[in-house]
């Protein structure tokens, strides 16, 4: 390129006399949005992020931690009662044999998807604003997968049967019969366990350089106990460029494989329904519709978590208004896709001319569960439309409230899909109405405690932002000196 330009000095003319290159080019100056505001330097970032872990445990943290533990105990008691008694303690009965357990499973696994979207897909798309939110979002993914996994594992009742007679994992039962690998439910076991494992690995690889920083700071401060613990997990990272070279490649590949992974996980989750023959489930739109919904719900949860964190720890320079705008816009885009999918389902139900399919959708909107359907439409289709407006996106409190609506709406989406379709199946004589039992309510309510419990531990003991990545996006990190201009 350089040689080419020098062969044709400015002002050279083509044979027809027209100038080949303009004598002077004035490129339009389009300033990039600053990802770290107020010109913070490397050391400020280190102090800010490490300071959260190194400082004294704040009082609010203990209150939240205690509350989360109390809420989590509801899950523990619900599950203990379930294992001691049997799955009959859940409210499932013919014809609704899948209900809150799988609703909650899909809800939580969907929330996890935003974390992987931020860490993997936005990494491949070189969206540098991802850096300051990806660590917390990935942690959210892992904890959401933990909450999700509770339901399929415990729905087998005697949980130890999940492994050895192979009610979930591939081991033969006492007659030597193996799992049915033609079934999406078995695919799901592989999808979700791979997703959980790869999410943990990806998160850990991202943590290594920051754990090295923590190790060195604790060593310098003379706290050898903590230096040992962080040092153990830092694996002896020393930030050498020959290490970075392999590290960056590994990170890129992990992002590259996590992208098809995250898309496949919710696709396979949607196969649980789409591969069946139930009207309202047996549709080809399910995979993309589920993936869009998952990202939508996940961004809802990311904002629910990050906005309070930003306010409490004064992270406004790192999670700027630009970050919030980006998150709101992704929520808007995916929420609109979900709204499109809802209308497309109705269109296909009519256009497909299948009376059972048509009935299933009319029943969703106007049947016994219409209340759930309209909560879903209100939260998922109408709520995100507020994000068109800058005034809304700049009002953090309002964004936070809207993000809660997104979470609620996406839970109801799964409820509507699963329960309405089953409650009105082919034979009117078997129609029923499902209500959850108190055990189910306890178990689900408690998962929010489990999630918060884990997330609070995360913000207390792990650097909540990838310092090395945030440092790499500030102007001072540019080897060609953009900070000098």
């Amino acid at each position, binding site marked *: 390129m350089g040689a080419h330009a020098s062969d044709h000095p400015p002002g050279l003319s083509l044979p027809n006399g027209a100038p080949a290159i303009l004598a002077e080019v004035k490129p339009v100056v389009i300033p990039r949005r600053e990802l770290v505001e107020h010109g913070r330097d490397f050391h400020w970032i280190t102090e800010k992020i490490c300071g959260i872990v190194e400082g004294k445990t704040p009082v609010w943290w203990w209150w939240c931690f205690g509350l989360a533990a109390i809420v989590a105990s509801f899950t523990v008691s619900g599950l203990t009662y379930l294992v001691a008694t049997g799955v009959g303690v859940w409210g499932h009965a013919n014809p609704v044999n899948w209900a809150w357990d799988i609703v909650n499973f899909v809800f939580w696994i969907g929330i996890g998807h935003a974390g992987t979207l931020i860490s993997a897909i936005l990494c491949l798309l070189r969206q540098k604003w991802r850096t300051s939110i990806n660590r917390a979002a990935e942690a959210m993914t892992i904890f959401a997968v933990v909450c999700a996994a509770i339901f399929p594992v415990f729905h087998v009742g005697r949980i130890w049967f999940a492994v050895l007679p192979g009610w979930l994992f591939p081991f033969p039962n006492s007659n030597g019969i193996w799992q049915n690998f033609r079934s999406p439910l078995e695919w799901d076991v592989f999808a979700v366990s791979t997703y959980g494992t790869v999410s943990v690995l990806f998160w850990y690889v991202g943590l290594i350089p920051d754990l090295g920083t923590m190790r060195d700071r604790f060593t310098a401060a003379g706290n050898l106990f903590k230096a040992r613990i962080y040092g153990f997990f830092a694996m002896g990272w020393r*930030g050498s460029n020959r290490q*970075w070279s392999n*590290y960056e*490649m590994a990170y890129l590949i992990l992002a590259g*494989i996590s992208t098809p*992974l995250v898309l496949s996980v919710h696709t396979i989750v949607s196969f649980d329904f789409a591969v069946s023959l139930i009207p309202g489930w047996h549709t080809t739109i399910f995979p993309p519709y589920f993936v869009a919904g998952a990202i939508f719900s996940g961004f809802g949860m990311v904002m629910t978590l990050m906005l309070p964190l930003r306010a409490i720890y004064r992270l406004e320079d790192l999670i700027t208004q630009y970050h919030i705008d980006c998150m709101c816009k992704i929520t808007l885009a995916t929420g609109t896709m979900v709204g499109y999918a809802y209308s497309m389902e109705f269109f296909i139900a009519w256009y497909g001319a299948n009376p059972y399919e048509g009935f299933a959708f009319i029943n969703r909107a106007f049947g016994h569960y219409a209340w759930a359907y309209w909560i879903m439409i209100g939260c998922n289709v109408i709520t995100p439309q507020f994000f068109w407006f800058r005034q809304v996106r700049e009002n953090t409190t309002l964004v936070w409230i809207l993000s809660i609506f997104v979470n609620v709406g996406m839970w109801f989406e799964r409820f509507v899909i699963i329960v309405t379709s089953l409650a009105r199946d082919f034979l009117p004589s078997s129609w029923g109405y499902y209500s959850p039992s108190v055990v189910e309510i306890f178990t689900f309510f408690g998962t929010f405690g489990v999630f918060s419990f884990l997330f609070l531990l995360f913000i207390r003991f792990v650097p909540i932002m990838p*310092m090395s990545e945030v440092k790499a996006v500030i102007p001072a990190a540019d080897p060609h000196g953009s900070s000098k201009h």
Partner: protein
Amino acid sequence: MNQTYGLIAAFDTTPDLYHACEKVRDAGYSQWDALTPFPVHGLDAAMGVRRSKVPRFSLAGGITGFVTGMSFIAWLGWVEYPLVVGGKPMFSPMFAFPVSYELTILFTAFATIGGMFLLNRLPMHYHPVMKAPQFVRALDDRLYIVIEANDPKYHATATRDLLAKIGGKDITELEA
């Protein structure tokens, strides 16, 4: 006996380090490294570091995962316990695909991370540069170049002069 591991020099800004690395590379050193708190874009080329070999591990892991999934399900259907379900074939790559796909990703992830650890020789909880008092800033806000004494071109004074000439500050000898 106090043997020398090498020399460490500090740099204040990323462009300084970047250009210094180019000069160390051009001076013909091979056993040297840059310590940075974040990955510096393009520093591999400035240092003359070749493209990472991690993808080879990833590819091997991915192929292993896919073959494992397909052959496991084929073995189940054809050999271990042939069982007709819904009149479908004993084995078909179609229904074996989702599981094989997930295993491809799972094995690739393990191979990638394993390969990265192997190539970076991690875990290595002790390294001579970690003993240096200035190392605490290497993962915080300062950039360093370390030239090892076992480099064939290393010379206690000539290398020190080179580091000083290219803008290195606080040049110190590292104990082995």
